[in-house]
């Protein structure tokens, strides 16, 4: 019997010829990602760190991004304590305020590679499935224990196989694809399970795969992973990861799946995830015309160069509706630099967009772009939970950069196909 991607990775990690779903295996991840929550994590193990130190100084990747620049004295003190920890223990991979959102930084700086196991104290750690890595979220206490001992355990998940056929028809994009899938599978439909993408994945570039993998957790998935191909190799080469540095892993053709789904990419249409659940997915025709108060383009889901290019195509030479606050949140400094240099960001700002520092702020309602009661925000982020953007009496809906951009100009939810 063949093995899935998850079975092969976890068998390899445990030094076993094969494993079965449900089996618990010990693992030693290559990297542990933590962000602003590093402050709380190291606070749990202060005395242990004094006694034992960290297990490896190249295990941790630490990125300050969640409340950056600091919003108040408490968050500033948290950042400071992280910098002191980094200095004291010689943590090799540290990215301070302004470098980017942690998941983008991990991939962009070449820390995630095919076949690698990474964990992070953030649920969207599943993003690195875009580059054929096995990556998933853990909690703060587990991150603390990992810093000390470097090992943890995983239960081998059963796997859902999703086969993609054809190509997306712009302005339909990867966000519409993953929202459609989540609408079908449900917010908990892949809980404790892995998701593999098969078929015509070559038409999706790394940024689109990132958008898809990033939202794997929104259907409960442990991992959401793409195969390694020329697209992956070209991307990794561009960020300085040589082909000789990694060994891709993929499922056997006769692997056993718990569920199989097929999608015709050409048939995917613009969709919108309405409040307050990510699986509350509607065709855009059902929501068209709804007034919006705020539009957010960016985040770790859709804050990359191609996302801002796609948005600019709908905004260039026009003005954002005076009733809409358009927020621009690049996923990293590198994204910002590219979109500044090629004129994209200037177009968006001249049209009325407000450029925010790279980071997570508005996505989790921590600071910047918090909503007032009764307001409606159309966002390219990954969550629309009640209270998510800082106010329980406001609403957030999720859509593609194309849909959000077209809607920001119109002042209301707009099908991007009708204005393209």
């Amino acid at each position, binding site marked *: 019997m063949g093995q899935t991607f998850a079975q092969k990775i976890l068998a390899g990690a445990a030094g076993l010829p094969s494993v079965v779903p449900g089996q*618990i295996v010990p693992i030693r991840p290559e990297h542990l990602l933590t962000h*602003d*929550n590093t402050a*709380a994590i190291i*606070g*749990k*193990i202060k005395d*242990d760190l004094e*006694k*034992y130190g960290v297990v490896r100084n190249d295990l941790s990747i630490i990125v300050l991004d*969640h*409340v950056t620049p600091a919003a*108040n004295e*408490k*968050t500033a003190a*948290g950042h400071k304590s992280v910098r002191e920890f980094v200095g004291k223990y010689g943590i090799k991979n540290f990215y301070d305020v302004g470098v980017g959102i942690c998941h983008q930084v991990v991939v962009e700086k070449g820390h995630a590679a095919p076949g690698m196991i990474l964990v*992070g*104290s*953030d*649920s969207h750690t599943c993003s690195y499935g875009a580059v054929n890595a096995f990556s*998933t*979220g*853990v*909690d*703060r*206490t*587990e991150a*603390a*224990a990992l810093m*000390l*001992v470097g090992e943890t*355990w995983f239960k081998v998940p059963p796997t859902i196989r999703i086969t993609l056929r054809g190509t997306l028809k712009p302005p339909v994009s990867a966000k519409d694809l993953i929202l459609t899938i989540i609408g079908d599978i449900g*917010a*908990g439909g892949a*809980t*404790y399970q892995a998701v593999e993408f098969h078929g015509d994945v070559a038409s999706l570039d790394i940024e689109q795969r990132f958008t898809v993998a990033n939202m794997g*957790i929104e259907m*409960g998935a*442990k991992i959401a992973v793409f195969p390694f191909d020329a697209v992956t190799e070209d991307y990794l080469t561009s960020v300085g990861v040589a082909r000789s540095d990694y060994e891709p892993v993929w499922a056997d053709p006769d692997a056993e799946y718990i569920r199989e789904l097929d999608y015709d990419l050409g048939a995917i249409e613009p969709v919108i995830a309405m409040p307050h*659940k990510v*699986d509350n997915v509607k065709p855009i025709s059902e929501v068209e015309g709804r007034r919006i108060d705020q539009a957010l383009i960016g985040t770790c889901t859709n804050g990359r160069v191609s996302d801002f290019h796609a948005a600019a195509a709908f905004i260039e030479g026009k003005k954002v509706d005076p009733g809409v606050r358009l927020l621009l949140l690049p996923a990293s400094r590198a994204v910002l630099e590219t979109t500044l240099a090629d004129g994209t960001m200037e177009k968006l700002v001249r049209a009325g967009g407000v450029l925010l520092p790279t980071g997570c702020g508005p996505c*989790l*309602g*921590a600071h910047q772009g*918090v909503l007032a009661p009764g307001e409606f925000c159309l966002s390219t982020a990954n*969550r629309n*939970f*009640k*209270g*998510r953007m*800082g106010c*329980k009496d406001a609403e957030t809906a999720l859509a593609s950069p194309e849909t959000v951009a077209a809607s920001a100009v119109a002042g209301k939810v707009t099908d991007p196909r009708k204005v393209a």
Partner: protein
Amino acid sequence: MRVWKYGDDINTDMLFPGKYTYTCSTAEEVKPHLLEDLDSEFAGGVKQGDIVMAGRNFGCGSSREQPVLGFKAVGIAAVVAESFARIFYRAAINQGLVLVECPEAVAAFKDGDEAVLDIEGGKITIGGKVFEFPPLPPEILAIRDAGGLLNYARAKLEERANHEMRS
């Protein structure tokens, strides 16, 4: 003892709003905000030994252990649900919060029913009817028995240090 019952897909923002995640870390700071946007009566009304019950995919969303710390601090005896999201599940193991996955018990529960939990015996009695749930695997019980993951990790570090001294 009271059972606080909620629906499916109760996410981490409902359990503990994201806007507090970088200002509240300790159990004492977390307690007043528990379930703030889901049930405004919970934080003030919850008592030692109460049970939280819910449907599918409880604790979905972020990596956020504050609700687990909060549940432990207010003395929640167990969370009984049809299923749990995986990061929440791990966080509960790591803190020693008892989670019971038992869809039958959740389906049987009606408002006002008495719930009696026998963790060691793997049984929950709802309105006089007994439901069994499977024991945790030994790898997970070892973490719980050590008093949570950090104590488990500390024991491992001691063991490694002793081993190095001997070799």
